[in-house]
């Protein structure tokens, strides 16, 4: 179970990082589109 | 060049005849293909010897030789047109479908001649067993048909790009994979003495492949051919 816990944490961290990156990218594009508040 | 009222077949025949005459005079593509095939076969046979070459190995070797020989010669039909400048005239005057069919037939002829020459040599060099030639023939025919049906369109594509020869192999190989896999599998069975009945699913796949490739090529060719 330990190994699984580590793998799970790593995966979540990677996923969170990817998601935040995409969110930032999305915001940059929306700024350029003029749709960002 | 027949008028546009002439049938597709006669127009394709005209394209074929022109290339046939050219090839007869220079034998450029034929020489390339034959020399490549004979050389590769000789190298392989020399290195491996005759001792116990399994049907699997024989089958793989045969189709490797055929595949690379095809790669060395089948793109010429279009590259030559582009390089000698005759492509423009062909584009203006001929029906794309006819051009494709004519080129397909030329490639088929080239590959057939090569196969007819190479197969006996193969059986002699490797001592594969003459009794297996007969079941091997239908597989051969389907293989040749399959090879040119897939590669003729690709040849037309790369003729209009740079780095032609390298690109030809890179583009052709993934498309040829299913064909080669079926051919090697069927040949292995045929050369192993299992007869054609054991290759039924492969044969069906080979026929289907040829039909799909030729139909697809016919529909797509005009987009490659016309500016």
């Amino acid at each position, binding site marked *: 179970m330990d*190994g*699984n*816990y580590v*793998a*799970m944490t790593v*995966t*979540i961290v990677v*996923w*969170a990082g990817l*998601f935040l990156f*995409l*969110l930032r*990218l*999305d915001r940059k*594009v929306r700024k*350029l*589109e003029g749709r960002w508040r | 060049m027949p008028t546009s009222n002439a049938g597709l077949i006669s127009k394709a025949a005209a394209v074929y005849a022109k290339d046939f005459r050219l090839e007869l005079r220079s034998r450029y593509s034929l020489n390339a293909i034959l020399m490549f095939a004979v050389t590769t076969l000789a190298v392989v046979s020399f290195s491996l010897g005759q001792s116990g070459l399994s049907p699997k190995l024989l089958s793989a070797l045969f189709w490797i030789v055929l595949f690379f020989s095809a790669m060395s010669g089948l793109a010429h039909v279009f590259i030559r047109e582009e390089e000698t400048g005759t492509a423009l005239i062909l584009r203006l005057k001929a029906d794309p479908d006819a051009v494709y069919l004519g080129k397909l037939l030329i490639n088929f002829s080239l590959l057939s001649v090569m196969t007819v020459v190479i197969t006996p040599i193969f059986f002699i060099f490797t001592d594969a067993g003459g009794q297996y030639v007969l079941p091997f023939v239908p597989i051969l025919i389907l293989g040749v048909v399959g090879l040119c049906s897939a590669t003729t*369109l*690709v040849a037309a*594509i*790369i003729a*209009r*790009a*740079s*780095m032609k020869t390298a*690109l030809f192999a*890179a*583009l052709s*190989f*993934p*498309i040829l*994979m*299913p064909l080669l*896999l*079926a051919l090697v*599998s069927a040949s292995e069975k045929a050369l192993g003495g299992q007869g054609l009945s054991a290759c039924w*699913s*492969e044969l069906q*796949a080979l026929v*289907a*492949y040829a039909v*799909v*490739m030729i139909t*697809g*090529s016919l529909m*797509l060719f005009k*987009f*490659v051919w016309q*500016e």
Partner: protein
Amino acid sequence: MIWKLLIFILMTAVIVLSFTTPAPQQAIGEASRIMYYHVPMAWISVLAFAMSMVYSIQYLRGRQLSYDERALDAARLGFVFCVLAAISGSVFARVAWGSFWNWDPRETSIFVLLLIYGAYFALRGAVEEEDRRAALTAVYSIFAFLTVPFLVFVMPRIMPSLHPADSVVDATISITMGPTVGLILLASLVLFTSLFLWVFYIAVRIRRLQRSDLKKED
């Protein structure tokens, strides 16, 4: 927007579940959990290629370069997923069956798909002129896609007993598909697809911005 948050939450849930529920294939053990990630990635590499092909068809019909751009963007994304699928599959093969590569039908298909993507990019690099490049790569994309049905449906029938791999893969998908496993896998598939479409949509918007930029310069 809400759906982005939803994607984040649901994906995190899937990740947690993929590690906390019992392993999908007991015979292979914990490594079979990769399935929850590997299968969606493989699915998307095919989906992306199919999308690229559809945009290629649309380009050949209307000759609008925007379609060509989308075909390229879909292909680029699909390539990334294809590489990931091949790597995850290879790792799984090593752990489960002993060797990194077996040429079993599905491994072969993903390999061929990788080659097709590679060939597509090679062709794009070899043609300078925009319109000709778009036309030639569109034709190749469509033509190459014609072989996919052969790889997916015909090949497994021709190479059945060469490797235990495929029967195990089928067994994994059909037999061990208990409700929990099936549900998590389905959720993973849906979420990966949503992720892919989101990124693709960002790419589309970037292209749009580039084009309007060019127009302003005129």
